[in-house]
């Protein structure tokens, strides 16, 4: 936009050429897609999709299986997000602690989780841990996702914490603040703000990874999609719809985080720790 409102004539011209290129790119993509679908010879039946989303009976709207699946996905994602932040924060603080056993514990957790597939972890929690802990499929899924994403969140948070200027610790300590107060009031607010973008990326990964819980018979968005496809053979329409719903969710999350970043920008990142 700025390129149009401001700048000299040659700059404006360059901007127009740039936008022209973009339109050309979109045009080619649409043309390729149209070509592909025609060549496929697939009988598109989009009109059969809406009932799976919602149905309206005498003015009463009821959610279809896809929207019910979405609700489950949202629930699991939200709970796991809280869980992963808890695990992540704990592991990050343990890794930074001066105690050897605390560091070893955190290290063991991180290596174990990050070096095995999420799918296996979900199976492990569901088939091995859940009978011991006496928890159901939903809780198992939430626990597995929390543990998995928590390991990544831990490294992100740790990076944010160690990136702060040493002077912040020293100032807090010289005022007599203990470790807890220093973390809570001085270190974490700054560290979290710095790593908000990668943390948001992790949250988006979590939403997408939650599709794997369909393997332990949880009727999330993916599982509902699978079931409908098995019954109706509307493979393309349903999977496109499911993908679009995931896209809306993750885009929504990105917007949310961007808003949060702006709101937190009362004091910008620069100048942290004395020298600009």
């Amino acid at each position, binding site marked *: 936009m700025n390129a149009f409102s401001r700048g000299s004539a040659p700059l404006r011209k360059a901007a127009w050429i740039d936008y022209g290129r973009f339109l050309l790119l979109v045009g080619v993509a649409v043309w390729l897609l149209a070509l592909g679908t025609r060549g496929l010879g697939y009988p598109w039946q989009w009109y059969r999709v809406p009932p799976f989303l919602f149905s309206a009976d005498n003015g009463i709207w009821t959610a279809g299986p896809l929207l019910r699946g979405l609700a489950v996905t949202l629930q699991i994602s939200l709970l796991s997000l809280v869980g992963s932040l808890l695990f992540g924060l704990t592991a990050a603080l343990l890794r930074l602690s001066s105690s050897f056993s605390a560091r070893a514990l955190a290290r063991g957790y991180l290596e174990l989780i990050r070096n095995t597939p999420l799918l296996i972890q979900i199976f492990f929690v569901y088939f091995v841990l859940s009978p011991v802990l006496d928890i159901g499929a939903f809780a198992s899924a939430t626990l597995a996702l929390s543990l998995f994403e928590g390991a990544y969140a831990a490294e992100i948070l740790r990076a944010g914490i160690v990136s702060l200027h040493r*002077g912040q610790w020293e100032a807090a300590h*010289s005022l007599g603040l203990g470790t807890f107060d220093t973390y809570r009031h001085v270190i974490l607010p700054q560290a979290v703000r710095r790593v908000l973008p990668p943390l948001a990326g992790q949250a988006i990964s979590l939403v997408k990874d939650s599709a794997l819980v369909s393997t332990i018979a949880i009727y999330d968005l993916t599982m509902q999609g699978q079931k409908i496809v098995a019954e109706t053979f509307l493979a393309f329409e349903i999977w496109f719809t499911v993908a679009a719903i995931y896209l809306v969710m993750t885009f929504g999350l990105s917007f949310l985080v961007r808003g949060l970043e702006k709101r937190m920008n*009362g*004091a*910008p990142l620069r100048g942290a720790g*004395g*020298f600009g």
Partner: protein
Amino acid sequence: MTAQARIIEATELSKTFPGGVVALDRFTLSVGRGEVVVVIGPSGSGKSTFLRCLNGLEEVDRGTVVIDGIPLDHHRKNRLLIRREVGMVFQSFNLFPHMTVRENIDLAQVRVRRKSRAEAAETTMGLLRKVDIQEKADRYPHELSGGQQQRVAIARALAMNPKVMLFDEATSALDPEMIGEVLEVMRTLAAEGMTMVVVTHEMGFAREAGDRIVFMEAGRIVEEGETERFFGSPRQERTKVFLRQIL
């Protein structure tokens, strides 16, 4: 000087950094109540390390530090007690950038001194008036000039109502035109009877506000003495050379 009158007693402090640099070499110094001691010396002589050992920001290898009768040892409680009584001002200000000026000064009053918000706010406004920066109370540190930030940092340390103030090259990071305003605040504090240990290169301030000058090099005291005597008739050859270089 009686033992009671000495508020800082640092005895035989030794510290070697991992790289092998000797920062303190059996360094002994005591400071009386209300005394202003100015520590000078070439860079790398251990001045800052000495200050940082006084409130436990740096660990000594050997030696003892006792502040107002409390030993700075491995007991966490003693360490926290000492840090409450010892305020510190840093070269790089180290204000908390995500908090306003007011919040910076309130924090430790509420969290450490357990004051109510209202009490803390009152103290804060009083201190901001003292360092003449009350109109910036709701600004963030990055909106302030260096001199203003350092004055806020002094107010933040004073908010704990400390018995001792340590100044670690408080004006070294400032633009020349801002040094005066910070030194002014420090002079006022000295005149009010605050016990101060000041590491600085500002010889004007040392002469004017210092009761005693300590010249150190390579972690040891080369010469110390009352301000007038020290500048008027330095005894050590090394001191004379150093003073000639910087004056």
